[in-house]
């Protein structure tokens, strides 16, 4: 019986990899994929918590988060397309994303 803590550790690692992807990469698509990776890491920890507490609430959240992620992908890629139509590039540093 694999304890919940093990799953939480894996999901924390995946979440952090997603954060690294967003902070370091330049291509808007890769950044967007990293965000999807972060959401998946959250789903893993949610399901392991649901098993820990023994009720279905965690799994209901995963279903709803899945729907939110799909909606986010739909709008996000449409925005990336509209940027691509103007700039013919999707490199984020051209869009100076991280200018503080």
């Amino acid at each position, binding site marked *: 019986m694999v304890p919940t803590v093990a799953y939480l550790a894996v999901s924390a690692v995946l979440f952090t990899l997603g954060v690294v992807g967003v902070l370091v990469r330049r291509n808007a698509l890769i950044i967007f994929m990293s965000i999807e990776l972060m959401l998946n890491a959250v789903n893993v920890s949610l399901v392991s918590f649901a098993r820990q507490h023994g009720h279905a609430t965690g799994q209901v959240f995963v279903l709803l988060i899945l729907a939110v992620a799909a909606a986010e992908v739909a709008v996000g*890629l449409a925005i990336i397309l509209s940027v691509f139509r103007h700039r013919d590039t999707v490199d984020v540093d051209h869009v100076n994303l991280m200018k503080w």
Partner: protein
Amino acid sequence: MLKEYFPILLMLVLAIGFGVTMIFLSSLAGRKTATATKTAPYECGSLPVGSARLRFDVKFYVVAILFILFDVEAVLLWPWAVLQAQQLKLTGLVEAAVFVGILLLGYLYALRKGALEWE
């Protein structure tokens, strides 16, 4: 609980194993002389022109998103379908009707805005 899924795992391993070994064995058997013409991408004998990756049209993207959004709708209605027969009396029906009704508005919007047209 995992025992039920063992056959699926077995089938997966067998399928991948079969494919990989075939490729591996054939690469071992043949004699390989890599000349320029032989390694060029094969386009029915004619010389390949330009990059193999052509640029897609936007209409593929629009159809793909509509597929995603209605796919998620179907997935969310799945539990409802399982339970509606026994448990959820009127409230279940109204709930699903509102859910589908709102997305019907979206479908009508996509239809009227010509998102589905495939000119």
